[in-house]
């Protein structure tokens, strides 16, 4: 797997290769191998505790309306000509919550019309509106993948993501008091700082 840093550590030497293979398989299955740049996993079967820390590679930019539609301001309405349907559902949800269903019409699958009322004007910068953030899905998939990698009985969990860096910890018992210190130490081993 093309990761800049990929290490599994555990007091039981026999399990290291097993968990390296598991992490490898899970990241490949979830098509996350290219998204993750660094990954460091530490498993302590005695406590027991599973900690994974890592960084993401290139962070995909948020999808704005202008990326897949053209907005035309006409008298009394704003017309959106959709070029790609991928983000249409997210866009409609956003428009409905912002302007209300009674003001948003969809005469055909490629067109949306928003009633532009004098007292309720449509945002002039609507083209810059963020419709969806691929990072949300990516982080959700990443946490799901880490849940699959971690031993199954570890139901007490905590995770954090920020600025392209993430950590995930899980255990069968309550998480240890020095968890943050352990996470920091693992980030240091990768040459990074925690989120």
């Amino acid at each position: 797997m093309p990761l800049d840093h990929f290490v599994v550590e555990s007091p039981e030497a026999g399990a290291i290769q097993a968990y390296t293979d598991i992490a490898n398989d899970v990241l490949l299955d979830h098509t996350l191998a290219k998204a993750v740049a660094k990954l460091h996993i530490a498993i302590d079967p005695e406590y027991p505790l599973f900690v994974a820390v890592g960084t993401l590679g290139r962070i995909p930019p948020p999808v704005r309306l202008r990326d897949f539609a053209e907005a035309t301001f006409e008298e009394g309405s704003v017309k959106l000509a959709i070029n790609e349907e991928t983000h249409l559902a997210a866009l409609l949800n956003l428009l409905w919550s912002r302007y209300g269903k009674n003001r948003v019409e969809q005469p055909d699958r490629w067109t949306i019309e928003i009633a532009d009322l004098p007292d309720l004007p449509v945002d002039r910068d609507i083209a810059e509106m963020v419709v969806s953030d691929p990072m949300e899905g990516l982080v959700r998939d990443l946490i799901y993948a880490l849940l699959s990698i971690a031993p199954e009985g570890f139901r007490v969990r905590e995770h954090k993501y920020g600025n392209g860096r993430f950590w995930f910890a899980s255990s069968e018992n309550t998480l240890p008091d020095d968890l943050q210190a352990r996470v920091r130490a693992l980030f240091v081993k990768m040459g990074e700082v925690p989120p």
Partner: protein
Amino acid sequence: MILVPITYKGGVYRHDEIVDLIADLGGYVIQKHVLATEVVLLCLVPREDIPLIERVGKPLGGEVQLSPLVGTEVAIVTPSLSIHHLPHPACDIAEYVRRLGAKSNMVGLARGYGKRVAQTSAEEREIINEHDCAVFLLGNFEHCIVKKMEVLRRGIHVPIILTGKPDVEVLRRAVDPPVAGYVGNVGRFMHRTKEADELERLDAVVAEIVRVLDLRREEISKDPLSASPARLMAVIQEQVPEILEVTSPTPITVQIAGLRVKLPYVDFADRIRSAEVEEGVTIGQVAEILPSRMRDYILVRIKPSSETDIVV
């Protein structure tokens, strides 16, 4: 007459001749699969007649293989039915064991995960105890395997085969008191077993199951059963024709010392109990007819001859 388990694979065309031949020789067809133009028969046949079956089957494109697991029911026990254990390795092993003729059932424990919190329910233990042996598929850490086995093995009376990532020697040393069999280098993994070394691991699991079940058969042979399970299967098929309408792949599952009959206990237990094996000898005299914990099936446990003074 010693019956040995075999698998016959051949074309569908004229395979009835093979089925008739096996019946004429005093053997039994335990299971029959028809897969497009191919037929697979899992049978118990007299050892000395195997060359005859090969000779008759040859012009029909038939092949005969010894399948030591035919006529056994094996429980494949996983700590849960989650993504962590299924489909790999649990399904891979269950499916591989079936190829060798065993009827394998997956038993996914409701709360078998974890080191401290692992436990089994009475129902799970009773279901596992209805099998000929149980294969416990545990994980990668020796520390966890030792802790979990203490709990998971409690109340299990059938032979246990323990699999895990540590080597066989490590498992053997770590688990006390010992279980019937050990297979190392299996553990938890998240990909399909298809490479040669991975298939070797599956072969090792099968070899250990065969070894453990041979020991069980040897033990039973010291006090033989009052009737052969395959013979009781034939009797039930003849005298309780409703079984022929059951759509399950194995309406009657043959075990080493019993049968699982997939008919409702309430409606059919008495009829099975009173079915005659020979003149004056009913199934009820040579076996216990019990309700199975698996759905509403019937479990037939054949008594040893020392208990009944009958051998049929």
